[in-house]
Structure formats: C-alpha cells, structure tokens
C-alpha cells in the first residue's frame, strides 16, 4: 500500500501494539476466500511471503443464538443448537440437553445415553473428515477431501435414516433422544465401520504420509503446551500440544466410563510437539478411537426406554449449571441460568473454535502466507461456532 500511515491506521484498532513497518502491506484474507473455513476475515500484515501477523476479524456469522435462547422455551431451543456448529451438531444438542436435564433433575434412560454416544461419535468422525480433508484441500490436494466427503456421505445417510436430517439433526431431546434407532441401523453402522477402518489406512498412504504434506505441516505453527493452556485451546488442538485432557475421560460424562478407548496425544510425530502435523494426526487417530467406541456401544446398548417423561412445557426452578462435553472441536460448554419460567434466563455457549481463533494472532507471527491456511486448517476453526 502506498501510504504506511494509512495501513497503521487501518490495523490500529485490531492491534495497537503492532510496530509500524515502513514496507508493510496489509492484505485482506477473506471474508470471501477459498480457505477461510466459513466467513472469516484476516488482516494479514506482511511485506512479502512472510507475514508479520494475521489479525482475525470475526463476527460475520454472528446470529445472536444466546439472545434467541432467552426468548425460546427450553424444548424449542434444541433446533437452534444445531446451528452453533453445523459440522458437529450432535454435541451442541447433547450439551444443551445435559444442561437442562441437570437443572430439571431429569434422569436420562440408559438406552438414550448409549444412542447419544453412538451418534456423537459418528458425528465426531464426520467432523474430523471435514477438518482433515479440508486441511489437505487447503494445501492443494483435492482428492483426499473428496474421499473423505464420500465417507462422510455414509455417515450422513446413517443419520438421515436415524433422525431424518443430514446436518442439522435436532436428534436429542431433554430427557433422551427423539426416536429410537430403526432395527437395521446397527448393522448399517457396523458395515460402515468395517469399510471405513481400512480406508483410514489407505488415506494415510494417500496423504498423511506424503512427504510434501508432512513437510508442509511439520514444524509449522508450533503451539507450545504453555501457550495452549494460556490461550485456552481445547480438544484435539490441546491434545496435539501434548496435554491429555479429554472430557470424555476426565469428566466421564454420559456413559463414556463404560468404554475402553485411548486418548491420542500429539508427540511430535514428524516435527516439533504441537505443530500443525500433530494437530492433524491427532484427529486421524481419534477417528479410530471413535470407531472403537461405536463398536462397543453397539455391543453393549441396553433395551428399554429411549426418552424420559418430560413435561411438554418444562419449567425449571431458579438454578444454574455449567455443563460441558467433548465436542469434535474440544470442550463445548453451556452455562445455563434458569429463573423459574419456561425459558432460560441466560444461556452462554462456550465453544472450542472461539478460543482456537484467538491464538491465530500469536501463532501466525512469522509464518508464511501459505502457512496461515495450514494453521487455520489445522486448528479446525468453524466460523459459525466462533461467532454463534
């Protein structure tokens, strides 16, 4: 840009401490850009291929879901939670249902919990498809992304047969789930898993082990464990930095203690600990674990009711709760305050992408423009989840 003063003026409100460079160029990365996942905007401050910093500018998809919650009855809010994170809608469903159940002291039937776990893990796999596939797509490899989309289509079909929707499931209800699974669904899921598990291996041969891909991600955008904690990273991003916090294990909510699974941690697979490749690889490894959980859940699933008796017009006593689940993007929390009426007094949704997004400002310093997309892709940021 011709006028450095203008540049500094433009970025001043985003980052006052940014030292002005004489030969600086500010570049609008997004909101319409092929590899910002959703509508995001980064102001890239650069003087060539190497960036000084990328300043995220969010809010393009802010829909005020928290405000909407204050106007919607408890039972009617479930469809809105689908829209928080459209790639992993089940988790938002679950965390909201868990919050209300905890407040209203509703006992969820065992079968419903198992059904929840099955669909959540399927959804986690589907979400990681997009995360890992889109990362490969951002780095220029188109085929892996399409391969994963194909696999995701099977999961979408399963979900469609189960609850009638492919993306915005609205499957869970306060006190259970909306419908029991059809009789042939376990077989369908098992057949999918049989097909899918060797495909992970094949996918690794196609792209994960590819030397160019490894070189693009290894040692790029390293997030140290201290930074990860400081910036509140959650989920796979945190575990990639070597910190083994998985709410499924630590909290043991729902029926997760019944299952035998591992929490894959980043250990510097091909580079430093906590680099982009670790974040990618942790997601790939998590898929296998999700498959294990689904298999166990299908084996152990008890019969019986799938939905507790809940009043249609649910009123909750004055109380408050903060419930959390391990979503595909890490800890997703709902802070819910009830005031005795049939709608929440305040509902706050804490998402993993929001905190993951805030680290971009720091982690992007000194990266190249091409690495920025690797960083965003490996953090698996979903724009609507950031903005809510």
């Amino acid at each position: 840009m011709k006028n450095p003063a203008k540049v500094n003026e433009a970025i001043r409100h985003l980052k006052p401490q940014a030292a002005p460079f004489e030969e600086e160029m500010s570049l609008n990365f997004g909101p319409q850009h092929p590899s910002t996942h959703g509508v995001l905007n980064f102001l890239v401050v650069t003087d060539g291929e190497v960036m000084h910093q990328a300043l995220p500018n969010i809010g393009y998809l802010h829909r005020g879901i928290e405000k909407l919650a204050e106007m919607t009855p408890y039972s009617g809010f479930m469809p809105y939670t689908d829209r928080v994170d459209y790639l992993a809608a089940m988790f938002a469903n679950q965390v909201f249902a868990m919050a209300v159940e905890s407040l209203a002291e509703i006992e969820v039937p065992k079968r419903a919990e198992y059904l929840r776990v099955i669909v959540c893990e399927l959804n986690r796999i589907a979400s990681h498809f997009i995360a890992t596939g889109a990362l490969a797509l951002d780095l220029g490899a188109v085929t892996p992304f399409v391969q994963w989309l194909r696999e995701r289509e099977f999961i979408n079909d399963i979900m469609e047969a189960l609850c009638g929707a492919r993306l915005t499931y609205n499957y869970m209800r306060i006190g259970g789930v909306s419908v029991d699974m059809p009789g042939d669904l376990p077989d369908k899921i098992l057949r999918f898993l049989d097909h899918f598990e060797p495909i992970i291996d094949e996918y690794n041969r196609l792209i994960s082990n590819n030397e160019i891909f490894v070189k693009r991600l290894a040692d790029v955008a390293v997030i140290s464990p201290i930074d990860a904690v400081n910036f509140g990273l959650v989920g796979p991003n945190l575990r990639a930095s070597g910190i083994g916090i998985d709410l499924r294990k630590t909290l043991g909510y729902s029926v997760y203690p019944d299952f035998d699974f591992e929490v894959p941690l980043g250990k510097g697979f091909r580079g430093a600990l906590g680099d982009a490749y670790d974040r990618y690889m942790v997601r790939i490894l998590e898929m296998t674990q999700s498959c294990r959980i689904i298999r166990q859940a299908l084996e152990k699933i008890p019969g019986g009711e799938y939905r507790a008796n809940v009043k249609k017009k649910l009123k909750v006593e004055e109380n408050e709760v903060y419930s959390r689940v391990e979503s595909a993007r890490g800890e997703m929390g709902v802070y819910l305050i009830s005031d005795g009426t049939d709608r929440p007094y305040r509902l706050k949704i804490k998402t993993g992408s929001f905190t993951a997004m805030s680290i971009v400002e720091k982690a992007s310093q000194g990266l190249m423009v091409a690495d920025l997309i690797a960083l965003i892709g490996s953090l698996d940021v979903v724009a609507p989840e950031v903005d809510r």
Partner: protein
Amino acid sequence: MKPAEVYKLLIDRFGEDLILAYVETRNPYIKINNGYVQAICTFLRYNPSTKFAFLSSISGVDYPQRNEIDIVYHLFSPFLNTLCVLKTSTPRDLPELESLESVWKVANWFEREIYDLLGVRFTGHSNLKRILLPDDWEGHPLRKDYKEKNSYHDMETMRPDPLKVLREKNEKSGKSQ
C-alpha cells in the same frame, strides 16, 4: 478438592471482605468482590494445591432488577478435576472490572465478547474493541432491555413476515370470511 474446599482455601487466604459467599447451585459458585478478581484468579491458577490452569469461559449475565451485571468465571483444574465458578457483580450503569488478560491470554477474547454484548469495560485490557458486532453498532444486545434498531446503515433489520402479509391481504380481499 471440591468447590467447598476451594471456598475454604480462598476464605483463609483472602478473608471475608474479598470472598463474599458460597452459593449452592448445580455448580456451586463462589461470590467474590469485584475489585480483586485478578488477584484471586492468579492465586487460584498458580497455587500448587489448586492449579486451576484452564479458564473455561467467562460469561456475563444482566440483572436489570438488581441493576447489576454478573460476570461468571469458570475455572477448570485438570489436576483436581474440579470446576470452580467465581461470580462477581458490577453496577449496570458503569460496569467495570479488572481484566484477566495477564492471567490467561484467552481472557482477551472472552472479555471483548462481554464488552461487545453486555458493555462491561475491563480495565487493563490491551484491546477492548467490539469483536462480534460491527464497531459502530449501538447498544449491547445481551442486556435485557436491548431493543434492536429498525435499520442499520439503511439496511432493514427485519423482513416483513409473509404470514402477516398474507393475512392482511386476505382480509383486504375478504377471503377469510
């Protein structure tokens, strides 16, 4: 260590002036004095017996009746496997609190969000700007008395409800009799 024990620890350390109350709810919270948020959080984070390393979320709640805004901090300690909820109030007319940015970097964005949606100012925050809404937005939407403007930069914020339009049209033509 249960939240009640954390409360006892805090009372021992800071006294009743700073740690106001311990309230039993689903997630019991500790009510703290709004002037000492940073000190208490720093203590909780670095004290070897608590080690609340993670700031899970910061939320703001508007209470027009009390004329106060509550700010709620959810701290999580993986070592104790405990969630610690700190709550503090700030007057609604001039909401102001200490920023926790020096304790957890992630507080930066959480506080910006609360500033954006509830209008709470955080002193010592490096970059207190609106984060979700445009910079020239008026009002703070999560306040209970917030009324949305009809237009923003000459753009309508509402579209006519087709159901209402249809009803009016039908009534005009006398179809619905």
